[in-house]
């Protein structure tokens, strides 16, 4: 067959995420388009990226820290709370947008062939850019609380971010492609994200979970990559502001962060696999 001849390719058969890497230039343009378009016509513009998490933080802090008294049981509860919230915010925005990205870009996908993985990946990247101002606010709070991190703790933060970022891309590929066939997918994601805030120790602390669930239950709770990411962030941003008597989850560095990386990588792989199976019929289903 002539397919063995050099130079002949089968159009529409891409290399998945590897193609995204090859089209970095387009990815960058898609991301900058989203960023430019996001706050168009608003007076505050990018300031909204500070205002929204700021208000959210104040609400949680007043309700949980002061009214429910969590502030009394924990040093620097405000830093603890915010370091978890920023990561969950990143994840929620990334996944919610990635799950809708294919359907929202349907007009383009129906007409021009390009690596469709670009759209979920761009959504996650845009969220990562919005994560930066929140991170700046968090660091400000950390320094005010006397933050003095070690190198290991900073590495843990990067690893935690990586775990959550890979998870968001993996689930984004999965739900984004499923959404083309069943719009239930994006609603399911909304429900999942509501759970995500509470299925990780963002508002409460991990010993409360272990006391209720026991060791086996706690081990299951710990396999959630999001939980591991949040704990890594606590370890990096909150723990160095305390006097060091607070308990770090056992084996966080030696076991759980590697587990989180592996679980996220597996989900990323499965997400890519599903995406490739479903993308062949995107153009006719959209």
């Amino acid at each position, binding site marked *: 067959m002539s397919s063995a001849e050099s130079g002949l390719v089968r159009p529409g*058969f891409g290399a998945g995420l590897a193609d995204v890497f090859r089209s970095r230039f387009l990815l960058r343009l898609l991301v900058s388009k989203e960023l430019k378009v996001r706050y168009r016509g608003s007076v505050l513009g990018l300031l909204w990226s500070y205002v929204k998490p700021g208000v959210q933080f104040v609400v949680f802090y007043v309700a949980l820290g002061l009214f429910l008294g969590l502030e009394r049981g924990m040093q620097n509860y405000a830093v603890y709370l915010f370091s978890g919230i920023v990561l969950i915010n990143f994840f929620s925005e990334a996944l919610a947008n990635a799950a809708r990205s294919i359907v929202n870009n349907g007009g383009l996908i129906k007409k021009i062939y390009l690596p469709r993985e670009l759209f979920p990946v761009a959504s996650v990247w845009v969220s990562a850019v919005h994560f930066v101002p929140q991170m700046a606010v968090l660091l400000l709070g950390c320094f005010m609380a006397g933050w003095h991190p070690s190198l290991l703790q900073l590495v843990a933060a990067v690893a935690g971010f990586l775990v959550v970022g890979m998870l968001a891309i993996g689930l984004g590929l999965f739900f984004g492609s499923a959404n083309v066939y*069943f719009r239930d997918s994006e609603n399911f994601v909304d429900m999942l994200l509501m759970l995500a805030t509470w299925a990780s120790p963002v508002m409460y602390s991990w010993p409360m979970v272990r006391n209720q669930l026991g060791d086996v239950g706690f081990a299951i709770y710990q396999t959630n990559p999001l939980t591991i990411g949040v704990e890594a962030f606590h370890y990096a941003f909150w723990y160095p502001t305390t006097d060091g008597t607070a308990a770090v989850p056992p084996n966080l560095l030696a076991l759980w962060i590697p587990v989180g990386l592996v679980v996220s990588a597996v989900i990323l792989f499965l997400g890519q696999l599903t995406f490739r199976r479903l993308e062949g019929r995107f153009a*006719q289903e959209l």
Partner: protein
Amino acid sequence: MTNAVEIRNIDKQFVLRHTRSIKEAIVWLAKGRKGDLSEKFYALSDVSIDIEQGDTVALLGFNGSGKSTLLKHISGVMLPDSGTVHTRGRVAGLIEVGAGFHPDLSGRDNVFLNGAILGMSEAQINERFDSIIEFAEIGQFIDTEVKFYSSGMYLRLAFSVAVHTDPEVFLVDEILAVGDEPFQRKCIDKIKELAGEGKTLVVVSHDLDLVSRICQRGILLEQGKVRFDGPIDAAVARLRGDG
């Protein structure tokens, strides 16, 4: 001569009616999965076409005959249910120009975005940027958001980006009705020029006089099947005769 496009026995089925409700799906399951949950029809059926490098081909046929579907298979937007499509060199489409435009971005941003969507690299766009603007006759409006453009300006810019992508195989779908008459003539001249340079062209248009001027070969499609494949004049005559 070598082939730029090889299409071998492709079939494509479309679903006419989608069943998305749980109730209908359960009824279907309860009845022992009898029949199809949805009706299907063949948009393309056993289509085989070879297009040589430098060929100028018009896909002809009435609405719903499968012309645009075939073009989408060549560009890779759709995959065939069976059979294979192979292409050589970069394929780019003048398919519904402006599909990748965003109204809130400036003309300049859109040139870069759309150029990249059509497969140009950063260096290529930078290099051809002035030529794109000149061809589009946009002038000082290049930094204005395209939502403020007149529809003619919008189409001219989009067309200009598309013709500057410089692929080996050009897919053209019903875009020749762009802008006012002088610009239309310019577009047609540009397409003829591309054909003259030895680019492969695959054109879908209902404007039979126009395609007979641009293309040498005509392929007549009817209900997803190739009815005729030969010189453009004969293909056009046949289509007119059938009509």
